[in-house]
């Protein structure tokens, strides 16, 4: 085993766990000062009354960052300039959880699958396999007898194409969400002209920056364009030519889905910021800034769609963080390989009708709590999920 001597860094006398706690407290203190936010634990007694006012046709949009964002570049003082929309537009409307811990595997597909099942999945992050446990989409559709058009996932890469439904017995095939992979769709649309190869557009596995996933099934992709999104190949490619990143394309696709099918459960995974794996700090920062803007655009889009306005709850959460600067085993922002407390600890914001605005919850919760919370919110029973519903938003 290689030994790398480590000398305590100046001004860094605490243990990693204490650092994680301190940062969470700092987020909470900052938010309380900046927005006059109230403390969440005082809200619990309001829940039963609030339920009376819930709209009957509630919808949920979940936005995850499939490329972790660190506190240093977001909620810490130097990072706040990167998230103006989250800070000034969304947080004042939301209940904010300052300490969301992920105890699972810190790989994007397996971690996002864990968020969607409420169980720490343990499959190979790079394998094209379905989650082992039922997904939130399956619980939702089976328990509430919802049609296939009512649950959709918009995800960044080929690796995510099995996330819509699990391999679990009595769930699985035919009961899950439709999955749209916008970059794959774009590649299929561009290649349909038979001109140039656009494989480079599909480079999205930033863990290995030059790896290009295989493209299969373009017929299915193009049918998604015309039959589901109601967009012609020409219109789709023309619009893509105006967009600067795959996440912008994902948001465009999500907006089309909202207009055409108005799914009650829509899950969008943004991935641009995972460019951090290439080690270029400026690109990582740009991606955070873009993600911040896109989150605000999604929320504005929700408010502008009659099917969604006033009856949609939106959850925003990174799947996990990234390695801290102080861990000599990592290389700071570039990766999420050490499993240190900062790479496991992140945040979540929830907004929508019936959700207390400008509220901060400082207690530790788990990323697995998302699915049980969605179950309580929408009225289904995620029997195999291991988290607990979050009463602060119910």
């Amino acid at each position: 085993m290689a030994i790398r001597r480590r000398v305590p860094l100046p001004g860094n006398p605490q243990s990693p766990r204490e650092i994680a706690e301190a940062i969470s407290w700092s987020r909470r203190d900052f938010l309380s000062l900046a927005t006059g936010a109230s403390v969440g634990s005082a809200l619990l007694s309001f829940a039963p009354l609030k339920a009376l006012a819930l709209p009957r046709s509630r919808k949920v949009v979940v936005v995850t960052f499939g490329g972790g964002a660190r506190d240093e570049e977001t909620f810490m003082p130097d990072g706040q300039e990167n998230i103006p929309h989250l800070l000034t537009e969304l947080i004042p409307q939301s209940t904010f959880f300052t300490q969301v811990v992920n105890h699972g595997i810190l790989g994007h597909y397996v971690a996002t699958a864990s968020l969607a099942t409420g169980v720490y999945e343990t499959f190979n992050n790079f394998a094209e396999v379905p989650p082992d446990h039922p997904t939130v989409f399956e619980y939702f559709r089976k328990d509430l007898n919802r049609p296939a058009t009512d649950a959709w996932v918009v995800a960044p890469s080929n690796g995510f194409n099995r996330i819509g439904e699990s391999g679990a017995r009595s769930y699985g095939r035919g009961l899950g969400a439709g999955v749209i992979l916008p970059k794959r769709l774009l590649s299929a649309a561009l290649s349909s002209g038979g001109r140039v190869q656009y494989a480079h557009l599909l480079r999205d596995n930033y863990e290995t920056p030059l790896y290009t996933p295989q493209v299969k099934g373009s017929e299915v992709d193009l049918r998604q364009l015309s039959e589901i999104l109601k967009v012609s190949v020409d219109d789709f490619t023309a619009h893509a030519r105006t967009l600067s990143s795959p996440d912008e394309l994902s948001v465009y696709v999500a907006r089309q889905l909202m207009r055409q099918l108005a799914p009650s459960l829509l899950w969008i995974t943004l991935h641009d910021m995972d460019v951090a794996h290439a080690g270029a700090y400026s690109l990582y920062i740009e991606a955070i800034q873009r993600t911040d803007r896109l989150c605000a655009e999604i929320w504005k889009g929700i408010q502008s769609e009659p099917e969604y306005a006033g009856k949609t709850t939106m959850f925003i959460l990174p799947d996990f963080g990234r390695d801290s600067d102080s861990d000599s085993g990592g290389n700071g922002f570039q990766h999420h390989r050490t499993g240190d407390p900062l790479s496991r600890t992140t945040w979540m914001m929830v907004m929508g009708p019936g959700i207390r605005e400008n509220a901060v919850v400082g207690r530790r919760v788990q990323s697995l709590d998302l699915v049980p919370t969605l179950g309580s919110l929408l009225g289904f029973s995620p029997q195999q999920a291991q988290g607990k519903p979050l009463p602060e938003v119910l």
Partner: protein
Amino acid sequence: MLPSQLKARQFKKYPAEARQLAIRHLDLLRELPASFVPLLLRELIEYDWKFPAERKQMDGQLAYLQSRSADQRQQVMAGFAQLRLTSELERLDWVNAPSLYSEKLAAYFWASHQIDAFRNAAESYIRTVNAATPKEPLPIPRLGIVVVGQGVPETRYPLFRKLRPHGVFFSQVKPANGVKTLLAAVSRRAGAHPIPYSHWYIDGGTGEAISGAGITTVSYNALAPARVALLNRMEESIQSGIGGPEALRTMLHQMRPEEIGLSGAADQAVLNRFQTTLLTEGSGTQIFSTTFVQWAAREAWARAQPLTLLARFAQRQRQRPMNELIASPQEKPALDPQGSLIDADMGAFYTWLNQQRLPGAEQSCFLAWFEDHNQALAISPTLPRHTESSSPVDLEWLLNQLNPS
């Protein structure tokens, strides 16, 4: 196979010095836990190509373990011994392919929720061995120098923001002959303390000529043929459709300098092996020169533990937005001066952090400079922290203030 079943003949494929070392410590290896030995062998198998500082660490680690009684060793290894392994892992050839094994082991620890326990065991072990290892005084304090912003005419980016709390920010530095002055300082130190691999110059571009012997130089442009060869190999592997990112990583891990056009001859073997790993193990080092310099500086500090390191960032290629990629997929990317400056600014911070992780950190000195401009940041035990100075100074004066001799 378990460590207790190890036999000398199983090391016959090891390079000469590594084989001797393993066989000399065979009894010790047989007594160590199965979750630990393959990780030790992963380092030991590379012994012939390790820097002197790394060899010293490996020797010291083995000597420490050898010097403990069986009970003491058991205590030191308790964290590793508690980790559960599978019979499938035990069946792998972890003697001859310890890197491949360690990748599978890491995946298993994550999947079985043992990664935190492994992390705790490793940290505790490293602390124990470090505490027991005698500290040798350095002949001179370490000096780290980082040059950022080559070719950037101006910027509004607040440079050295993360470094400022630790030293003095100078806003009126005279830039004339700046690079030459810094290179001369490296040459002087190398001349005065001619210790192999103790003085480094890493450049994100072509690199300047540097006088004197005993300076290890690495440059991004000098490795261009190796990078092209490597990218071609990666492309072939991807196009073959065999395996995904993991297979690609394994292929990169096993790559030898000769396979990407670097010499494996004895006098260059150590450095070329190091340069190969920069490209095969560093993520993004093949495509972004800023990433390359940051990673090379990190690895040089950690592995060679030099007395002097000068890292000069250059401009990296621009990451083209999606709409441009659609419009003109084959066009060669231009450079990104402002983005490169921001990358380098963070790279300077990380270079200082990694320097601070080495022995003698409390005496070490550091200088970061915005090339051809008047902003610099100096850190040393003799300078105040979190201070600004608008006095007109030049880099020679700054180096003297650091006074690392």
